[in-house]
């Protein structure tokens, strides 16, 4: 295995594009190094992107936050403006692993690891986050939900890497939230995760919504029926019941060591209801 630490993104993409065998991007390493312990792990090249300018920075512009691909999740919660704008995403990012893991793990890495149970992904999908991808052929913006293709698989082409996650600043009367279920209080992989973003109209009805589910299928699920169930409603009990039912219906989970099909479907509805309430409350106070 070769370790490289390029100084520019061009060098990074060239290294990745030119690699003969398996090549991996190293940002926080909290997934990659675990896989490296595995006896059948095989990598010819690891490209550490942390020396590349901007990779470790959160940049706030007039209309967006740009989170460099190597920014550790812990840094998200230290960015007051980001916390105020996207509390659901920051909470999701800070649910990943332990304090130690959060010192290293990144939302871009969480996305590229393409685990269906990734905590930050449903939150980002609900928020309409975009990934800025750089490759040998240039730069493109891709909706976050289009990156994971199945467990461990992404839509990135050889030589491409995520440079940053871009979050547009939220509009008035909007809010996001993410909740997940784990058996313990910390340190577990999500058994079910639900991200909700919604915006209210001036009369207080839900005008727009996005609902994303994690760990209930091979990749993150953007549950459009679930969003539709609350749009136009005051998020009353009937709307929440419809939301929960739609979320349960949108699940296509498996029985595994972390949970059962029945459990995941049922709890997806429960969490959707709770997350929607939180997002609604946040939307209510944001003018």
């Amino acid at each position, binding site marked *: 295995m070769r370790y490289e630490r390029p100084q520019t993104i061009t060098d990074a993409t060239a290294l990745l594009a030119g690699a003969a065998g398996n090549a991996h991007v190293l940002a926080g390493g909290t997934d990659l190094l675990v896989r490296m*312990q595995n*006896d059948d792990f095989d990598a010819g090249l690891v490209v550490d992107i942390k020396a590349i300018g901007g990779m470790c920075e959160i940049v706030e512009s007039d209309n967006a936050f740009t989170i460099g691909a190597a920014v550790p999740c812990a840094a998200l919660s230290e960015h007051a403006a980001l916390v105020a704008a996207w509390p659901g995403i920051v909470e999701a990012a800070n649910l990943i692993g332990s304090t130690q893991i959060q010192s290293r793990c990144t939302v871009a890495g969480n996305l590229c690891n393409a685990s269906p149970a990734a905590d930050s992904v449903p939150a980002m999908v609900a928020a309409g986050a975009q990934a800025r991808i750089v490759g040998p052929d240039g730069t493109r913006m891709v909706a976050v939900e289009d990156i994971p293709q199945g467990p461990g698989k992404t839509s990135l082409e050889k030589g491409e890497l995520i440079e940053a996650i871009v979050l547009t600043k939220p509009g008035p009367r909007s809010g996001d939230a993410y909740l997940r*279920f784990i*058996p*313990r*209080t*910390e*340190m*577990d*992989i999500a*058994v079910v995760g639900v991200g909700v973003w919604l915006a209210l109209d001036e009369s207080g009805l839900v005008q727009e919504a996005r609902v994303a589910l994690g760990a209930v299928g091979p990749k993150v699920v953007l549950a459009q029926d679930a969003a539709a169930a609350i749009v136009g409603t005051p998020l009353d009990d009937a709307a929440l019941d419809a939301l929960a039912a739609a979320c349960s219906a949108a699940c296509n989970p498996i029985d*595994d*060591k*972390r*949970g*059962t099909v*029945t*459990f995941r479907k*049922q*709890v997806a509805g*429960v969490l959707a209801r709770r997350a929607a309430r939180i997002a609604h409350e946040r939307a209510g106070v944001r003018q």
Partner: protein
Amino acid sequence: MSFDATYRDKAFKSVGTRPLRPDGVDKVTGRARYGADFNMPGQLVARVLRSPHAHARIKRIDTSRAEAVRGVKAVITAADLPDLTDGDASLLAILDNCMARTKALYDGHAVAAVAAIDEKSAKQALKLIEVEYEILPHVVDVDAAARPDAPILNEAIRTSGVEPAPDTPSNVANRSEFGHGDVDAGFAQADVIVERSYRTEQTHQGYIEPHACVANCNPDGTTDLWVCTQGHFVYRQTCADLLGLEVSKLRVTSSEIGGGFGGKTHVWAEPVALALSRKAGRPVKLVMSREEVFRASGPTSATSIDVKIGAKADGTITAAEATLRYSNGPYADMWAELGAMTSFACYDLENVKTVGFEVLVNRPKVAAYRAPSAPMAAFAVESAVDELAHKIGMDAVEFRIRNAAKEGTRSSYGPVYGPIGIGPTLEAAKAHPHMSAPLGENQGRGMACGFWFNFGGQTCTDLNINADGTVTLAVGTVDVGGSRASLSLIAAEELGIDYQNVKAVVADTATLGYNDMTDGSRGTFSSSMATISAARNAIEVMRRRAALTWDIPVEDVHWEDGHAKAAGSKYDNLSPLSVKEIAAESGNSGGPIAGHSEMVADGAGVSFATHLCDVEVDPETGSTRIVRYTVIQDAGKAVHPAYVEGQYQGGAAQGIGWALNEEYIYGEDGRLQNPGFLDYRIPVCSDLPMIDTQILEIPNPNHPYGVRGVGETSIVPPLAAIANAVSNAVGVRMTHIPMSPPRILAALNADKDG
């Protein structure tokens, strides 16, 4: 010299205080050396090849390609560990578990091992070992394995303990029975009977330090083993037996131990490391990975238990019966038997019967885990007892007080009790503020009792009085949680000197006589008894030295408060001599001063505890939070109360993990699905509240200071206490441990649908 172990009430000066532990600084500075923290010159790295199959015949192993890898110095298989067990079936089982001989009996069973100059070469060599397996049908479930149509693990096994002796093989290795009276007659007198079946899943001790050792076999037969173990003398004996080594030439040094809880009472990798070192002619370091720890070492039994208890309307239990099936892994042991012995040990019963079945399954060999087998039996029995109390309409604590065993009770497993703590712990529970604290929404309170035998065993100790009057205490019981502090307190107490002037160490096997391991809650009990004996012997020497100094008869010298004193007014002019003064003169008065002791520390007092627990269950997700937890346990005498509390808290925390989330999960293929701390979910810091403790001291009449073992009992009640609390919170009786959120939610759904 005869030793009088009788308890005598006295005012303590050192015992019962909370001084700083002698190994504290080393452990907070990273200087303490654990199993993996030791290296030798020219040391090789070992790696073990393990079976990916739950049950498979090993048809052929070819190691030639692995041996050819550059840097590889030795490759071994079972052929390098010939059977020297001479018909000893239990020893052969240990050998077979260290390295599969004809069949791989579980996912993770060792089949070969490599020693190489570095990890990379060793790993490369492992991949080149060719093993041809014939895959056999497997069985991992305890009930399925006990059925007549189950795949048989060992064709030679006939169920023992049944009449007439069966002539067909079975996975049920043994049946054991305990009890007295006539349970049928007893049930006939009952007004109310509760009868239920319970299940518990397999758990692991979960010590944070993986097994690790460094083995060095020299060409002249002298051999050293550095290892994290709960019993280096036992490891020495087992390794010597398995490898045909002379006991005197095998020197075993116990490292600091990073947790054991029973899991480091059995050899695993040590004979493999020794065999590799012998073959390679170099020192070999073998450290298990976390995955190997889960797949190949230590779990406790999975169980299936039926309980039936009957009582009169006034709350008197008339009969109690339990049938217990415990998984053993692939080798027969006595885990169900221990469960059958402990089931009803808390109660004074006229009619009681317990039957235990040892069941072989394709899972790792079961190892002791803190009060082994008792928590599962207590879960079943204490759940049924709680339900019975509710049915009769009695308070759960009152019901237990009414039926509690006391001094003179004939226990369900045979012996008649002396003074015991079950009644006092229940009375303390009744009076505890926890019992009357208000409960919130979705919260429930539960309680349960627990019992453990405790153990004494072979013990040997040296106590040396140094020329400056300080004391070096060498013990042979491994310090798993502060016993060097406790034993220093004991020596200080008996000699009448300051704790600061005693330094306790754990001696290696070459420098002290044989000691049983630190198991059975015996470390502080047995070594404190031996320390008192050694101190008394040293005092005898000091009395003689004082008599010599004063030139008076030794009968006229008595020992008081750390001083030799001349008895009677005729010696008024003789000032008492301190330990320091006597020690200073030792070179001129007969040489070094020491006390030795060797004994079988009999009379370990049985131990009882009562736990109280409040939980909050989220009815929509089945998630359980421990809101409040109280441990009340009899310590006999708490030598160092902080470490007694630590044992209470640690046992409770392990029980909480077992009750709620910990379990071995097997796939259809018989492979372990969760061999890591990510999905084998031990409690994390944010899962638990502070754990309150109340130490009761009902002196053990068979120990000079009244000490009982305290380490194990605390893991016995939690499963039942939490199950009772959850059942009270949600109104549905939980009968399957762990009560993971999917299980609780499924039970709630079934209750709604039903």
